[in-house]
C-alpha cells in the first residue's frame, strides 16, 4: 500500500515532530510563536559535548558521529561554512530520559567526551546513539539490553558506531558479561524494572570506577506509594555507597519519573 503507507508514515513522523516542538515550546512558556528563521545556529550547551540548536524552534543536539545518517528518524542540521561544516542531530526529550534530565536542569552531566559509559536499558539505541555522539570516538559506551526485538535495532546502531559495544544480556547479572566490559566512568541505569537501584548497585560494584558517577532513572508508578518507593530506592543506593547528589523530576516529558544523579565511592 504505497500511497497509504506513505501518508501514514508521513503523518506519524509529523506527529512526533509536532510533539517535540510543542514540548520544547512548552518548556519555555506556552503559546510562544515560532521565531522567524534568520539563520539557524548551534551553540555549545553548558555540558561538554551537548549543543543547543537555535532555529525556528530550539532543540538540544549532539554532534553526529556518523554524518549523513539518522538513527531513529530524528532531524539533522548542518551548520557552518566550508571546512567547519558540522552536522548535529537533534535530541528529543520525549524519547530520551537523558535529554529530559538535561533540560530539567541537571547540574553536572558526567557523560563527556572520552568518557566510558555503561548504559543499562539501552532499548533500541536512540539515547545510546546520543551518548555515543557525546563521548566521541575516543570514548566507549557499553549498551546493555536483554530484549531481542530492541536488541536487533541496537546492534544495527552499534554496527555504524564503533564506540558502542552491544551487550544483549540481562543487566541483573553483571557477572555474565564481565568478559566484555571494562571499568567505566559513568553508569546510566534506565531499566524498566521495579528495582533499578539494586541493578545499578550490582553493576556499579562490578564495573564503576571509584569516584565514578551514576544516573539512575526511577519510576514511581503508583501515586499513593510514590514517595515511599522513591525513598526506599534512595536508601538502597546510599547503602551501596552510591551517594545521591542530585534528584530531579522528568516532568513535563515523562510522568512519574525521577532521575537520581550521584557519585560512587568518593
Amino acid at each position, binding site marked *: *500500500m*504505497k*500511497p*497509504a*503507507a506513505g501518508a501514514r508514515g508521513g503523518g506519524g513522523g509529523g506527529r512526533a515532530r509536532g510533539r517535540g516542538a510543542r514540548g520544547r515550546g512548552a518548556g519555555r512558556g506556552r503559546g510562544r510563536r515560532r521565531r522567524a528563521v534568520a539563520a539557524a545556529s548551534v551553540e555549545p550547551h553548558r555540558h561538554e559535548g551537548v549543543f543547543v540548536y537555535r532555529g525556528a524552534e530550539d532543540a538540544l543536539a549532539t554532534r553526529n558521529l556518523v554524518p549523513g545518517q539518522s538513527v531513529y528518524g530524528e532531524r539533522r542540521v548542518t551548520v557552518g561554512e566550508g571546512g567547519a561544516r558540522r552536522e548535529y542531530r537533534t535530541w528529543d526529550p520525549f524519547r530520551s530520559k537523558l535529554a529530559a534530565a538535561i533540560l530539567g536542569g541537571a547540574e553536572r552531566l558526567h557523560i563527556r567526551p572520552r568518557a566510558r559509559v555503561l548504559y543499562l536499558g539501552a532499548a533500541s539505541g536512540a539515547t545510546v546513539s546520543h551518548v555515543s555522539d557525546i563521548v566521541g570516538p575516543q570514548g*566507549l559506551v557499553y549498551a546493555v539490553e536483554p530484549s*531481542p526485538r530492541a*536488541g*536487533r535495532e*541496537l*546492534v544495527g546502531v*552499534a*554496527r555504524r558506531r*564503533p564506540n558502542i*559495544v*552491544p*551487550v*544483549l*544480556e540481562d543487566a541483573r547479572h553483571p*557477572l*555474565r*558479561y*564481565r*568478559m*566484555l566490559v*571494562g*571499568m567505566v566512568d559513568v553508569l546510566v541505569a534506565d531499566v524498566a524494572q521495579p528495582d533499578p537501584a539494586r541493578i545499578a548497585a550490582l553493576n556499579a*560494584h*562490578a*564495573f564503576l*570506577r*571509584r569516584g565514578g558517577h551514576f544516573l539512575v532513572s526511577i519510576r514511581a508508578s503508583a501515586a499513593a506509594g510514590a514517595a515511599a518507593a522513591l525513598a526506599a530506592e534512595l536508601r538502597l543506593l546510599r547503602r551501596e555507597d552510591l551517594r545521591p547528589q542530585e534528584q530531579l523530576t522528568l516532568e513535563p516529558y515523562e510522568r512519574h519519573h525521577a532521575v537520581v544523579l550521584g557519585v560512587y565511592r568518593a
Partner: protein
Amino acid sequence: MLVLFETSVGYAIFKVLNEKKLQEVDSLWKEFETPEKANKIVKLKHFEKFQDTAEALAAFTALMEGKMNKQLKKVLKKIVKEAHEPLAVADAKLGGVIKEKLNLSCIHSPVVNELMRGIRSQMDGLIPGVEPREMSAMCLGLAHSLSRYRLKFSADKVDTMIVQAISLLDDLDKELNNYIMRCREWYGWHFPELGKIISDNLTYCKCLQKVGDRRNYASATLSELLPEEVEAEVKAAAEISMGTEVSEEDICNILHLCTQVIEISEYRTQLYEYLQNRMMAIAPNVTVMVGELVGARLIAHAGSLLNLAKHAASTVQILGAEKALFRALKSRRDTPKYGLIYHASLVGQTSPKNKGKISRMLAAKTALAIRYDAFGEDSSSAMGVENRAKLEARLRSLEDRGIRKISGSGKALARAEKYEHKSEVKTYDPSGDSTLPTCSKKRKIEEVDKEDEVIEKKAKKSKIKVKAEEEEENVLIVEEETPVKKKKKKDKKKHIKEEPLSEEEPCTSTAISTPEKKKKKKKKRDTED
C-alpha cells in the same frame, strides 16, 4: 593465591604477590591506582589467548551459564593444579563447578571482588603482549558476534532475497519475451512457417538450435523435441518454404540469440525453484495459504515480511489494486474486492460470484499466517495447513447451494432467490475519468433542462392516464384515484404524487409545478423520479 580473570582476548591467571595487602579490603583499591603499583601486587602467571572469535564465543557462553568450557578446564588443570594454590573467581557458581570437577579450592569473597575491580581497571597494563587496541577490537568483535548469536541471526530468514528474486523473475519474463519475439521475427525471414507450426517458444528455439539452416531439416531428427506429425509437417514446410536464403554468419547470430534464450529459460526455472525454497523457509504458512508466487508478490509489494505483517487483513485483500481502490474511493463507487490475492488458487477455483467472499476470507486467514511467520518463533506450517483446510471446507459449502448459511447461527437454510431477469442498462459514468477535485455543485443549465424534460414526459404519461380515468367516470374520481394510485405504486419508477397531480391537472401543468421543487436537493429529486 591465584586469580582467574576472563577477558575478551583470553583467560588470564594472575598470581597475588603480596597476600598481606589482601587483609585490608578497603584500601586495596589504592594498590591498583597506577599500572606500576598494580604490577607489584599481582603478576600475570599465564595467559590463554583465544585463537579466534569462535573460541571466544564458546568461552563466553560457558561463562554466562556458569560452567567451564574445555579450554578453561585445560588451563586450570595445567596451571592451577601444579601451583596448589586456591583460585579466586568472580562468579561463585563457577567456583563451585571448578571445585566439583577439578577439586580445586576456589575463593569468592568481597576481597576477591575488590581484586577483580582492581585488575579490571588496570587490565591494559597487567597483560603485556596484548595491545589495548587489540583488546578493544576483540571486545567489539566478540560483542557483535555474541549479539548475533543471541538474536539467532540466520541467513535463511532474510526476506530481501524473496523481494529480489520475484523482481528478477518478472524482469526475466519480460526480457525472455522480448528475445523470443525477436528470435521468431528474425528467423521468420528465413523460415516463416516454423513459427506458425510450433507455438511453444522453448521448443521453437531448441528446434532452431538443432537445425539452423532450412536445408538441414530433411536430414535432422527432431523426434525428441516434437511429436511425429509435427516433425513431418516441419520437414514438409522446410521444403516449400517462402523464406529467403541466409548466409552462415546470419544463421550463426540467430543461433547465438537462441542459445541465450534457452539459457535464460533454464535459469528462470531454476530461479523459480529457488524462490519456492526460500518462500517455504521464510514464510511457510503464507506459502501454504496462497502459494509461493502470490506470497512472494505480497511480500515484495509491502517491502518486507515485517511490513506486510503490519497491514490489516482488509489491506492484504486489496494489496496490488491501489489504483482502482483510490479511484473508487474518490468517485464514491464500489471499491475493488481483490488485488494480488486474486491469483491465489483458492480464489481462482471459485465461481465469479463467490470470488469476492473467498478473497475476503482468504485475506483474513492469510493475514494471520503472515503475522505468524513474521513474528513467530517456530517455522512450522501447521497453522497454515489447518486454516487452509478450514477455508476449503467453507468454499465447498459456499459453492453448494441450499446448504446452511455461513453467518448467523448456521442453522437457517441459505435462501436462494427466485430467478428474475433484471435488465441492467449500464451507462458510462464519467466521474471516474478525472481524479481532479470535482467542480462546484452548481448544476449546468443543460442538466436542469434535461431533468425537466424527463419529468415532463412522465407527468404527461400520468396525465393521460388520469384524464382517461376521469373521462370515464367523473363521479367516482376519488375511488378511481386509489386504483390508479395502486398502479402507480407497482410501477416503482414513478413516485409522482397522485393528489397534487389531479388537483393541479386542470389549471397548471406539472412541468411548471416541478420546477418549484427544483430547489430541493438532488437526492430528493432522484426519489421523486
